[in-house]
């Protein structure tokens, strides 16, 4: 039986979320932006799995539900990357660059 401390798990998840927020706010390259969003998504999946591993700490769902949501989230994140790359290709064709600061034609 594996025994682990809960605080470390939550701390890791929060740290990854903070890194993700920082990346989303600072990076101008679309692919780096996608990677930042992926890090945040992974923090969320990690959180669902942690609370599935410690089911009596989570008042909202039981363990199997947590793991089911984690599986669905993995699929959702893969879908998001596919759409993101489609946007990268369209942006590259339209502007010749994947810098998100250049994609401002809706601003005018």
């Amino acid at each position: 039986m594996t025994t682990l401390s809960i605080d470390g798990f939550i701390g890791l998840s929060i740290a990854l979320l903070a890194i993700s927020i920082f990346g989303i706010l600072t990076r101008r390259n679309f692919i780096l932006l996608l990677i930042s969003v992926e890090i945040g998504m992974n923090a969320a999946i990690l959180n669902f799995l942690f609370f599935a591993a410690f089911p009596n700490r989570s008042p909202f769902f039981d363990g199997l539900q947590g793991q089911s949501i984690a599986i669905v989230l993995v699929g959702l994140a893969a879908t998001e990357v596919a759409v993101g790359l489609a946007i990268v290709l369209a942006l590259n064709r339209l502007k010749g660059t994947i810098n998100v600061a250049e994609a401002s034609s809706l601003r005018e």
Partner: protein
Amino acid sequence: MSLEELAFLVLALVAVATALLALFVRELVHTILWIGVFFVDLSAIYFLIDAPFLGVLQLGVYAGAVTILLLFGIMVTRKRIFSREAITGIGALPAALAVATFVFLALVVGEFPGGEQAITSYNVTDLSQALFSQFGVYLLLLGLVMLGALAGAIYLVREGRE
């Protein structure tokens, strides 16, 4: 400190370090390599907390498919694969916001009782049965989202669009 705690500590440190490296390294291809290490490291954490199915899924979907897709994105949008990114530097406001998020969430979570606890592990058979009966709605919704995303992605990249 037990062996599992030591393993988790090392894996968590590697996860944070590789996530930071992926965002701060100048070469975009190196970013993809670091993020690949990050995904493999997270799958090791999943194995550690007795979620082997999710660990395999993480290896296949993230370390396999997502990494290759991102690499493909770099490949088709650049003339030279290895070219350095003009780094934008550490903005004071985003860094402050990230630190504030961390501190706030850590304080909020710190209110709840922590401590050591045994990990509950689940049978893969039970998980799949629950996924296809009790929580089947999630899978249906995921399928609908994927269908819409597929149509949208094809519309975005098709030739001859004005």
